[in-house]
């Protein structure tokens, strides 16, 4: 009795230990598997993104190389330059909307500031009065009286529209029209302090928000026409060529800068055409400084930068110097919108994409260049200070190298928002950018891992329960007191006639039957699995020889005098035969199709063990031990 208790405690102990070991093993296997999956996903995403962005950069570089060697570009740069009203109108027209909006934004942000406060505020003055072109500027008028409220020339402050009309009739009329309809524009002549009369162009627009004390303002942008010079007599053929090139190559614009630093032509005429590039706003000036240091045939990159104030789309400038017979004649700059790169990075590429997935670019200063999917963070303002960016910037500056084919577990880290992420980084060296791909560690690893773990625990707990039920059932079944030893089974399994037949059967016949049976099985199974072609062929010989002996057992069991012994031995040998036959089929299957789970072996093995124990019980009944 004590042993039986100990025996069952052992079974439960072994099985429970197996359960705990297995669950822990599955957890570690699951973590490795998920981790490897995350790494493969990130490597694939970042490789694809890097290739596409590098292609974008390469295409831009090729375009500039082509243009810098093109005779058509040399033709344009060699043209004479002429003063241009059109360029002045475009430049002033582009600036008025921006400056009027900047003034409005400032007033909205400071709704309680009186006019007198604003006039003494340097910050507002810098917004209201800005340089335009080389000598132009912006001003502010009173929208009701036309009085000059902000002007770079302090002598003109407080001058009324009537006084201005005395200096320039056209200007007075333009101001009157702006007071009346809210906006106006026109050319006028203006006598400078040195007595020189110059032609000017002005555009005026009413500001959409009043001062704290209710004064409405009109913003005006005025520029001297003689600040604007463009290439003269550019043929229609050349114009069409550059427009077509611009559109087909998906450029924002193509700038032709003369040897004396002036933007003399654009594929699409817009703001800043005709001006000295060094005073041009919108990043083109800074881009030109980069291009100035290039050697012959070299291509330079600048950016991204904001196309103009208030713009939300970033642009990249790619430029190269143009030479004609070895003589420097100018610079060509291609402006590309980064919206294409934004589109590449915004694309959802895999089923793994979920909350927290980001693909973005930062520049050499670690500043975010492309919008994020999940968060509204300002580009060109947000610094991304995380370890993957630091690694990438180090590699850009030659202080380290990123192993792109590195294998191993990927380690999570905190991103700049403080969330735990998995991330990879790749430098894009031509433009000094870093490309980053990140996925939320919670979303792609911990949550799936928890689900997987819960599922495994439930499945295994079920299997463990089944195991206990089977073991318990078998123990109950073979226990002599309860089932098999009872005489109620007598003549229930086989009829009296059958029992009598087998009892009288001579040993040689059972021997013959055993031989026929095992040979039959051998040929049947080998022909089914074609095992004469594989190594399992030999394993079957040992198994079938055991089956042969067990058949002798089964036949002989009928000759046993004690009924309980007969039941035990017959049933035991039958179960052991079943186990061996199952084993043969599984072995053949393994050799033919590959390894199978141990779950397939367990039922047969348990049947075999029960058979062996029943034979033991039967033997004990015969030997009375």
């Amino acid at each position, binding site marked *: 009795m004590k042993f039986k208790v100990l025996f069952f405690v*052992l079974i439960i102990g072994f099985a429970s230990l197996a359960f705990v070991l297995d669950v822990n093993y599955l957890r570690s296997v699951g973590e490795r598997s998920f981790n490897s999956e995350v790494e493969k996903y990130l490597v694939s995403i970042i490789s694809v993104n890097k290739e596409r962005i590098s292609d974008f950069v390469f295409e831009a570089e090729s375009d500039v190389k082509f243009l810098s060697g093109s005779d058509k570009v040399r033709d344009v740069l060699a043209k004479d330059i002429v003063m241009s009203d059109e360029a002045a109108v475009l430049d002033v027209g582009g600036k008025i909307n921006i400056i009027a909006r900047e003034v409005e934004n400032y007033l909205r942000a400071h709704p309680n500031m009186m006019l007198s406060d604003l006039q003494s505020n340097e910050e507002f003055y810098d917004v209201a009065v800005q340089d335009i072109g080389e000598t132009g500027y912006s001003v502010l008028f009173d929208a009701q009286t036309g009085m000059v409220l902000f002007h770079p020339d302090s002598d003109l402050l407080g001058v009324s529209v009537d006084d201005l009309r005395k200096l320039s009739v056209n200007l007075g009329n333009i101001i009157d029209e702006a007071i009346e309809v809210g906006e106006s524009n026109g050319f006028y002549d203006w006598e400078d302090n040195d007595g020189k009369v110059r032609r000017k162009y002005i555009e005026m627009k009413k500001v959409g928000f009043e001062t704290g004390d209710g004064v409405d303002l009109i913003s005006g942008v005025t520029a001297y026409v003689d600040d604007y010079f463009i290439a003269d007599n550019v043929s229609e053929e050349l114009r069409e060529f550059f427009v077509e090139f611009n559109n087909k190559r998906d450029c924002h614009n193509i700038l032709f800068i003369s040897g004396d630093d002036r933007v003399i032509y654009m594929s699409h005429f817009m703001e800043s055409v005709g001006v000295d590039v060094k005073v041009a706003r919108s990043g083109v000036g800074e881009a030109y400084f980069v291009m100035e240091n290039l050697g012959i045939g070299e291509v330079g990159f600048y950016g991204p930068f904001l196309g103009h104030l208030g713009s939300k789309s970033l642009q990249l400038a790619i430029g190269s110097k143009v030479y004609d017979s070895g003589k420097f004649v100018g610079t060509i700059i291609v402006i590309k919108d980064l919206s294409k790169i934004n589109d590449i990075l915004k694309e959802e590429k895999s089923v793994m994409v979920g909350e927290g997935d980001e693909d973005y670019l930062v520049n050499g200063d670690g500043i975010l260049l492309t919008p994020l999917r999940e968060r509204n963070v300002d580009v060109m303002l947000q610094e991304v200070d995380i370890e993957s960016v630091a690694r990438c910037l180090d590699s850009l500056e030659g202080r380290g190298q990123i192993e792109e084919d590195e294998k191993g577990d990927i380690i999570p880290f905190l991103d700049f928002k403080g969330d735990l992420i998995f991330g990879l980084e790749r430098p894009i060296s031509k433009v000094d950018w870093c490309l980053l791909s990140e996925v939320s560690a919670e979303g792609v690893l911990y949550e799936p891992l928890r689900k997987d773990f819960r599922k495994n625990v439930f499945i295994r707990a079920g*299997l463990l329960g089944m195991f206990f039920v089977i073991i318990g059932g078998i123990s109950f079944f073979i226990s002599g007191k309860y089932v098999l030893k009872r005489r109620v089974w007598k003549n229930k399994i086989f009829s009296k006639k059958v029992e009598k037949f087998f009892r009288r059967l001579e040993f040689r016949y059972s021997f013959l039957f055993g031989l026929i049976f095992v040979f039959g099985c051998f040929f049947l199974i080998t022909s089914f699995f074609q095992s004469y072609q594989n190594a399992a062929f030999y394993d079957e010989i040992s198994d079938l020889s*055991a089956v042969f002996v067990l058949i002798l057992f089964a036949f002989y069991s009928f000759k046993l005098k004690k009924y309980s012994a007969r039941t035990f031995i017959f049933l035991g040998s039958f179960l052991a035969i079943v186990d061996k036959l199952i084993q043969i089929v599984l072995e053949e299957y393994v050799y033919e199709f590959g390894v199978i789970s*141990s779950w397939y*072996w367990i039922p047969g093995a348990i049947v075999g063990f029960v058979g062996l124990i029943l034979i*033991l019980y039967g*033997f004990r009944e015969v030997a009375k031990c």
Partner: protein
Amino acid sequence: MLADLMFMVSMIVASIFLLWATTRCMINLKMIKLGLPFFFSGVLLCFSAAISFYGIFDQKIWFGLEFSWTILFFWIFVNLRRVNGNN
């Protein structure tokens, strides 16, 4: 993993039971010769569990193990006939 462990647990449990029952039979009733094949069956099962635990699935070893069962069953059969009066 769990399947492998359960397979081994099944073998160990069966072998413990066999060894216990056989040893009791052999010692209490002094029927050493009759109990020996069952005792070896228990040992063989333990041996199989160990081989399975270490993942040794060499064909020659398995052939040897399977053939041992034939010998043991035959030994038991001979003993059974002898005890039953060689009828």
